[in-house]
Each structure stands twice: as structure tokens, then as C-alpha cells.
């Protein structure tokens, strides 16, 4: 192994650690956001259990049909009854933390969680930033 190889591996690892800081962490999820084709299409509270139909991006049928069922149960979010062939979004399982995603590429659906970050100053335990 040459010196350049070590430098490259170090650089890639450093970059991924830096990126990990950008991803929301140490947050409690509060909101479920469903993006369809890059736009926010649905927004639910994670504290209310329910099953919601999601209409993915379907230019051929003009976005009228349900493509997935979004389940929110006990603070966990998952997808069932996906209409696509590969069912990758179903296999992604349950997510419960901001920074985790459920993605459906064929219908351009991206499900993410947003949380409230509690600022750890000690003086104001209830202070919340977005």
C-alpha cells in the first residue's frame, strides 16, 4: 500500500465524519414529512398513530392513485402496500429518528422525520431551536 492510498482513505473517512455532523442527530422526532417530487406533500405528527394513503408521483395518471400506505405507530414510521415492483421502501423497515429516511425512487417519494433539537445549555432546559 502506498502513501497516496492511505491519504485517500483518510480523506474519504474524514469527509464522511464531517457529513455525519450535518445530519440531524440527538433529536427526538416530532413530525413526519412526506416529499413527493421534491415538494413537501404531507405532514403528520409522529405522536398520533394512523394509516395515511400517499399519492406518489405518477405523471401518467395525474397523481390520483394511492401508491403507498404510510403507517405511524408508537412513534415509528413505516410503509406498506407499495405499488411498485421492488418494494424497497417496505423492506427499509421502521424509522424513528431524524436523519433516517424511507425512499421510493419510482414514485419520487421521500419520507423523513423532523425533530426539535433541545439546546443543552443547562440554564434553559426548555429552549428549542429549529
Amino acid at each position, binding site marked *: 500500500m502506498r502513501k497516496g492510498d492511505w491519504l485517500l482513505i483518510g480523506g474519504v*473517512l474524514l469527509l464522511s465524519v464531517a*457529513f455525519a455532523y450535518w445530519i440531524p442527530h440527538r433529536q427526538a422526532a416530532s413530525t413526519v414529512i412526506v416529499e413527493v417530487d421534491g415538494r413537501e406533500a404531507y405532514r403528520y405528527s409522529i405522536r398520533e398513530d394512523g394509516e395515511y394513503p400517499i399519492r406518489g408521483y405518477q405523471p401518467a395518471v395525474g397523481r390520483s392513485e394511492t401508491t403507498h400506505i404510510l403507517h405511524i405507530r408508537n412513534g415509528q414510521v413505516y410503509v406498506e402496500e407499495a405499488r411498485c415492483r421492488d418494494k424497497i421502501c417496505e423492506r427499509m423497515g421502521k424509522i424513528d429518528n431524524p436523519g433516517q*429516511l424511507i*425512499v421510493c*425512487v419510482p414514485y419520487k417519494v421521500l419520507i423523513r422525520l423532523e425533530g426539535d433539537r433541545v439546546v443543552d445549555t443547562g440554564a434553559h432546559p426548555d429552549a428549542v431551536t429549529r
Partner: protein
Amino acid sequence: MENNRKVVRIALFVSLALAVYLVENAVPVPVPIPGFKWGFSNFVVLMSLTMLGTRDVLWIVIFKVLLGNFLSGKFLSPVFFISCFGNLSGVLSMIALSKTRCFGYIGISVIGAFANNLAQLAVCGVWLLRSVHIWYFFPYIALMGTVSGVLNALMAKGGEQWFRTYRKN
């Protein structure tokens, strides 16, 4: 005669890459990322980088992507486009890096995997899903890309040695 040898080599490498491409799905993936693949077939590309010319390497990658997607029934699906851009940027970065002669198999392989993954995420984020949040996956794929890059480098080294001893006999 030399040309025949070249054609046979390209065909051999393409079929080897295709076999790995189709079989690697059986290897479990430890990250929660949809559609993540190990990309082990790239060890064949890596190997061909030292054993064949630049143009031949590009042909191998083009055949690998086209035939691999034909055989798995994903031709012209979103996955096909992700795979096209990923493989193209992967092989171009590997060719560029191998020209500098500052890096061994491992560095070239790791950068190839990294460029491949980066391009795939970019296609997803900018074109397919049009959401910046897809980059949440970046640390996972950068780490996994490094792991698979190192594994590919080891396999390529082994493969190259096998080819050399095979030629002597």
C-alpha cells in the same frame, strides 16, 4: 492475432463482471439504504485497468452496465440511470487516478467506489427525487464504499496473480 487475444480478454472480463454483478445480491448488506449494492464486479474493472488499455476498460464497463441491466430486467428503469452515471464516473476517476501512478490498487479502487456512490446519490438527489435530504445517506455509503473498495482491490490483486500464473502454464 493480437486483436483476437484482446477481444477474448474483453469478453472474458465482461462475463466475469456480469456473473459477479448478478450473484452479489446474495451477499447481505449491513446498511439501511435502499438499493445499496456492494459493487464487487468493479474488481474486474480494476483488474482490466492494469491488464488492458483505457479504451478496453471503458468497453468492459459499458457492456457490464448494459447487459447487467438487461439481464436483471432493469433496463431504462430509474435504477438503470443511477447505475449508468455511477459506473461511468467510477471508471473515469479510476482511469484518471491510475494515470498519475501515485496510487496502488487500494487507492484507485476506493476512489472509484467513492465516485460511483457520489454520482448515484447526485442522480437521485438532483434528478430522480429532487430532494437534498437524500444526502443523509452519504456517510453510510462513503464508509461502505471504502470497505468494498478495499475488498475489490484485494480481489483484483488475487485475480491478476491468477491470470499471470495461468498464462505461464
